[in-house]
């Protein structure tokens, strides 16, 4: 199986306009198994997005390296898909053209036309191919954005709070949908979330990060069968444990993690 991610002592700092330096990642080490579903959780500002961007190549680390399937990441590429918190669809393209964008950019659209159809159906947007993003709901746009990231068959899909903007009901549906796609496509998914329930419900592994200097606090394997039930006693045990770690780790208590 493909999609092995190795993060080797990755550090990243930012310089603020006033000259002060923020250490967003401090020698982070992590090994993500091919084909697994991993969640990153932690208080806001602890470097989750920065880590995800380092894996994708959108922002390169100052120190250390990221490898995907033994290949060093030096620039963004289609084999590492990225789903942003906002759908970020191109407003001047209809849904179908948005989803086909990557294939066209790579010059392989002609041979992959069927894939576009397939993914439109997979995310439940059949019949909306010709609609423009502003004509559809936030949830529909988010699904189109997922299809756009998936249709190029990336080895790894990086999701930065992809469901943060959705209402609770749509959100739960989308969680199931993402898990279904993940199983079908057999790819590695790394998802940033604020929602402990979501992390436990979806992941093989939950990675808890702490802020300042940002590092990985703990990696928890979720040994629950699938499909999972949210009310189950083991589920609640995992949730409590993660909440305890988060609570202990973040002295400057930020309520966001209970979202």
């Amino acid at each position, binding site marked *: 199986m493909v999609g092995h991610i190795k993060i080797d002592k990755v550090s990243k700092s930012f310089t603020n306009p006033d000259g002060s330096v923020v250490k967003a990642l401090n020698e982070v080490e992590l090994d993500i198994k091919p084909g697994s579903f991993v969640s990153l959780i932690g208080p806001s500002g602890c470097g989750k997005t920065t880590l995800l961007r380092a894996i*994708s*190549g*959108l922002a390169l680390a100052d120190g250390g390296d990221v490898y995907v399937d033994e290949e060093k990441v030096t*620039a*963004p*590429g*289609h084999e*590492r*898909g*990225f789903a*942003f918190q*906002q759908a*970020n669809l*191109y*407003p*001047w*393209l209809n849904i179908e053209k948005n989803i086909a*964008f*990557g294939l*066209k*950019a*790579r010059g392989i659209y002609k041979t992959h036309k069927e894939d576009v159809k397939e993914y439109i159906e997979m995310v439940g947007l059949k019949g909306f191919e010709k609609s*423009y*993003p*502003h004509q559809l709901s936030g949830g529909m746009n988010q699904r189109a954005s997922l299809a*756009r*990231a998936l249709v*190029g068959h990336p080895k790894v899909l990086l999701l930065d709070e992809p469901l943060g903007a959705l209402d609770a009901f749509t959100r739960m549906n989308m969680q199931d949908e993402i898990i279904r796609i993940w199983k079908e496509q057999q790819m590695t998914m790394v998802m940033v979330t604020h929602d402990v329930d979501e992390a436990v419900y979806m992941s093989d592994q939950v990675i808890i990060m702490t802020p300042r200097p940002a590092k990985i606090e703990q990696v928890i394997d979720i040994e629950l069968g699938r499909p999972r039930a949210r009310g189950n006693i083991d589920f609640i045990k995992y949730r409590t444990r993660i909440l305890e770690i988060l609570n202990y780790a973040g002295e400057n208590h930020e309520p966001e993690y209970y979202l």
Partner: protein
Amino acid sequence: MVIKQIKKVSAILSALLAIQVHIRMPNSPLQPEASKPYFLYLLYAALAVFVVSYLLSFFVKPVDKKLESTGPLLAGGVLLLNIVNIVCSKLALLPVLFFPSLDRVFGVYVNDWELLLKCIGSSGKLLLIGFSIGAVIGFGTGILVGFNKKAAYWFNPFVKIIGPIPATSWSPLVLSLFATSYQAAVFMIALSVWFPITVMTSNGIANVQQTYFEVADTLGAGKFWKIFRVGIPAALPSVFLGFFYATTGSFVTLVTAEMFGCKLGIGWYLNWQKSMMLYANVYAGLILLAVLCNLIITLLFKVKDRLLNWQKGVIKW
């Protein structure tokens, strides 16, 4: 219901009133007599159009809607002409040299149509050539400045210094530099078009959301794809604004440039008629200019609606 009917017939009533005034009130003896009552003919034509649309409105829904919304406006327009007619031709309250009768103004279109048509053709050609050159170069520089930091560094001061100077103020220099005054006019129009399009294109590109490019990066798009399929489409609303400014600016430059050295064109016509003190012809030329400029801008917005249909109402015309 009654109000709706009043709105719908208002234009007809206003036209009838104007016709009655024109027939029953004698023209002032101070005002030179027109060869024929051309304003009256225009009123008859307008009345015919109003009556036909009124009858049509009972069978065609869109005409009904349109007539209800624009009826009062048309009525007001006709009323305004009616008042102008009373003030200028009937009572001659204003100096008759500068304020000719409407009969004479509209008569110009009948008596001088051949020359006017030639002028429209000449101006249209000049505008098209100048605009195209300015737009192509402006769009090109805009893209270059928008995407390339080095180009921006060297071009920006140039754009800042040259740009805000009204293009026509170059005329003393340009007229002696170019072989013909026609070339000089083309240059000035191109210059006046180049500036707003460059600025609005590069601004539009510089303000494109960074995430649009990042999305393209993670989907495997190359540099050119990002420029032409992300940067430029995202900047189009701003580019369109640039075209809008350029169009309105080019009219000014066109008319002024034609007054300098052209032997034909609407600007030349206005200038020539003014120098011969034929103010009826000057008004006719101005009205023609207003109609043509409006037509071009309406066309521009039609193109915008096609191109930017993904975007909802930016500026309405």
